[in-house]
């Protein structure tokens, strides 16, 4: 598959690395030689030093016969023009990164398709959605919905008070309302089998249905945690603005921003429910006077990953139950997890996984790239005569590091256990270690 990526910014580079590992033909086009130099020498891809909005440059990069063209420079209008030009040259599918909420509205999609843009992505909005989801269910670290919400997967950090510790999974009982799809222990992702146990300190990924959430909360020992009502966001970034707009009405939000000009700008972007405070979000006395002790969630969204991590740690000392940090430096993500930051937001990963799903051959409608676990979640529609339908799940020799979490059959959600028989037409949710999606596609087609 030939993929052209325009813009060697954070998202572009992350995506290029991700795809280069998948044995795809990647061409990266950017004007800046410095940005390209580092990539060229260490990854298996082609770099072209040209402007992403020049026809000449795009031709040289081979946009004309690309299967996928991804425009992810920092400038939205350049992305749109670049994608349009690539479409004009003959690219099969184009994706452009945007910064404008209006463009995403479904009624405008037809227009964008007509000018040669097949898909738009808005990383800040995706990140804001993750943050709001994280606050709605503050005891859950990560939360995904599959098949329109029929199945949910959640990552929960287990403490000493959880009821399901130290028992092999096989002994927890039959017909459980959940399926444990992954365990993250000390930075290592385990796709568990029946003999594995859960231990205090593990981040455990449960696959379940929405009606069973209270049950999971009880067995995970999370019942006494309060719901999030008061939220403080440090750093008035674009994600902060989007979060403010997506937040449900019952939450009260304060945004702390140190730059006065940005504060003034923020007042124009958010509405009356949000209070903008000028100051340093790391200053304990400021946090005290703004009532950090009575705040349930603290979100750190400054440009600086270290600051975000430290501020979240400080907030934890004040007794904030839910902390969310934006960590753009991928190397820090594991560290942030070790330091017990509730949820880590990484715009690059979110954007890249979103684009990643677009280029998978199979009928995959939703691939999520997990931030903590080095793992992917994918949805497949099972084809007639696929390998997986031949016998019960436990008798099919799926590769190590793959597990089927749940499925949707005739619009009913089911949790998959060893004895489940998968049928053609089922919509299954598969959990696997990073980069394995390609190798498991064959089981479902």
């Amino acid at each position, binding site marked *: 598959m030939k993929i052209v990526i325009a813009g060697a910014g954070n998202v572009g580079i992350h995506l290029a690395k991700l795809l280069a590992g998948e044995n795809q033909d990647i061409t990266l086009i950017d004007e800046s030689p410095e940005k390209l130099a580092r990539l060229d020498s260490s990854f298996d891809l082609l770099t072209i030093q040209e402007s992403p909005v020049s026809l000449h440059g795009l031709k040289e990069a081979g946009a004309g016969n690309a299967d996928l063209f991804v425009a992810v420079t920092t400038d939205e209008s350049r992305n749109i023009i670049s994608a349009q030009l690539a479409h004009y040259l003959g690219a099969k599918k184009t994706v452009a990164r945007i910064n404008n909420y209006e463009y995403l509205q479904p009624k405008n999609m037809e227009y964008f398709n007509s000018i040669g843009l097949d898909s738009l992505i808005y990383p800040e909005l995706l990140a804001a959605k993750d943050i709001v989801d994280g606050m709605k269910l503050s005891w859950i670290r990560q939360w995904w919905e599959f098949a329109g919400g029929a199945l949910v997967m959640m990552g929960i950090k287990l403490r000493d008070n959880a009821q399901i510790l130290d028992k092999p999974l096989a002994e927890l009982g039959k017909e459980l309302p959940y399926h444990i799809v992954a365990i993250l222990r000390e930075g290592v992702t385990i796709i568990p089998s029946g003999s594995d146990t859960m231990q205090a300190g593990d981040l455990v990924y449960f696959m379940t249905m929405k009606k069973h959430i209270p049950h999971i909360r009880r067995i995970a020992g999370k019942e006494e945690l309060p719901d999030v009502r008061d939220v403080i966001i440090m750093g008035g970034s674009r994600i902060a603005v989007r979060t403010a707009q997506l937040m449900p009405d019952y939450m009260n939000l304060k945004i702390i921003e140190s730059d006065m000009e940005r*504060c*003034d700008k*923020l*007042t*124009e972007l958010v*509405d*009356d429910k949000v*209070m*903008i*405070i*000028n*100051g340093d979000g790391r200053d304990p006395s*400021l946090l005290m*006077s*703004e009532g950090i002790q009575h705040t349930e969630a603290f979100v750190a969204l400054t440009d600086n990953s270290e600051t975000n991590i430290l501020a979240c740690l400080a907030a934890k000392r004040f007794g904030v139950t839910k902390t969310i940090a934006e960590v753009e430096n991928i190397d820090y993500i594991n560290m942030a997890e070790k330091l017990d930051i509730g949820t880590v937001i990484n715009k690059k990963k979110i954007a890249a996984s979103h684009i990643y799903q677009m280029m998978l051959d199979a009928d995959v409608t939703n691939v999520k790239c997990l931030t903590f676990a080095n793992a992917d979640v994918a949805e497949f529609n099972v084809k007639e005569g696929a390998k997986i339908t031949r016998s019960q799940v436990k008798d099919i020799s799926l590769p190590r590091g793959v597990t089927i979490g749940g499925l949707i059959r005739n619009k009913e959600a089911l949790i998959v256990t060893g004895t489940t028989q998968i049928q053609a037409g089922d919509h299954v949710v598969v959990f696997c270690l990073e980069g394995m999606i390609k190798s498991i596609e064959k089981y479902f087609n």
Partner: protein
Amino acid sequence: MINVRIIHRILGVLLLIESGILLLCALIPVFYSEDDLFGFIMGALTSACVGMTALYIGKSTKHKEGAMTRRDGYIVVAISWVLFSIFGSLPYYISGYIPSFTDAFFETMSGFTTTGATIIQDVEVIPHGLLFWRSLTQWIGGLGIVFFTVAVLPIFGVGEVQLFAAEAIGPTRYKLHPRISVSGRWIISIYLLITVLCAVSLRLCGMGVFDSVNHALTTAATGGFSTKNASIAYFGSHAVEYVITFFMFMSGINYGLLFFVIFRFQIRKLIEDTQFKWYLLLLFIFTAIVAISLFISTSYDASASVRNALFHVTAIITTTGFTSTDYTLWPPFIWMILGLCFYFGACAGSTTGGMKTIRIAVLFKSMRNEFNRILHPNAILPVRINGKVIPTSTRQSVLTFSIFFFALVFVGWFFYLAIGIDIAEAYGISLSCLSNIGLTIGDHGCNIPWSDMPAIGKWFSTFLMLVGRLEVFSVLLIITPSFWKHN
């Protein structure tokens, strides 16, 4: 420096227009065969002569030609209001129905500024022509003299933006159309529509044709001149009171918003407007207070309490100043509440006077922010109107405007006290002139006893009316020394 040629030319044209309007009014005495015809003819001739002279000066090459500046706009607006009042007073003066020039000028200025305070002891003996002219002055002044003439007759081709800016009502503007003269014509159409509907409704309620037209003109202008001594009380009809209440209310809405409702069917735009919501809120709160107080403390039954409260609160908040009864006979608490309403005014961008609802909203929100600031010293607390943050400069100018407004109320109050007027009444007169209402409070009735006032008091009142109508700064600006300095 100021552009003498353009100013003369514009003023000349304006005076010729006034002369034309006076000539049209002269048809009424012809129709009714009354003796005020001579006054109109003479007024029109004088106005035309002075206008021609001004045009002649404007044409001469003695002064340099140049583009019109903001400065010129302010001068033209302020002078044109005074000139219009001077020449507009000639029919009263020459026909002898108002024998003193001071009184005639006062009556005209009270008309053009839509104040509606009248010097005439017995309105009912005044001939039809003069009564119509009196109502028409309010109708012309309702949207602004210059606005009216420029929007109806786009004759200058230059300086419309500067002129409109100098005469505009309220701190913000709704642009309906990229070209200001086109917006002007839309607004005039709405104005005309309200007036015609009001006249027809009043006629249907049993009012005579002449009275309907006159009351419609002064209602749409939120002016308050009546053709009867007892104002609306003369008609003794609840239907008339409700119709007038409704049209006063309509005239108090921002005409830009009415445009979207009437011509673009975008009712949401009106309902979601911050200023409109505050307008409704103020009307509701004060109507409720007055109605409940009336019900408790007077012999009115429930429906009479509500009707009287609604009528008077609307008449005062829209700064129309009609009365259907003498409210100063009610307990002092109630007329002091009405006295508080003297400040507000209706929506900016309508024909109203007073401080304007939008400024009240901004003031209130700023005050609330000050309390919040004590609790959250580092918070950035913006003031939002229609969901948009208003710039600090606008907020400051609203605060400054309010301080000036209050200061002028006090200056006026002390002035009237000094010339021997009762304390409550002096407050009422000062505020009501500045807000262009034309009523007062106190123990001597709701109408201002102008006949007892010395000439200086009347001249001072005309000054307050003009300052209030042109929103304080436009008039005060041209009496500051820096305005006349080069650059």
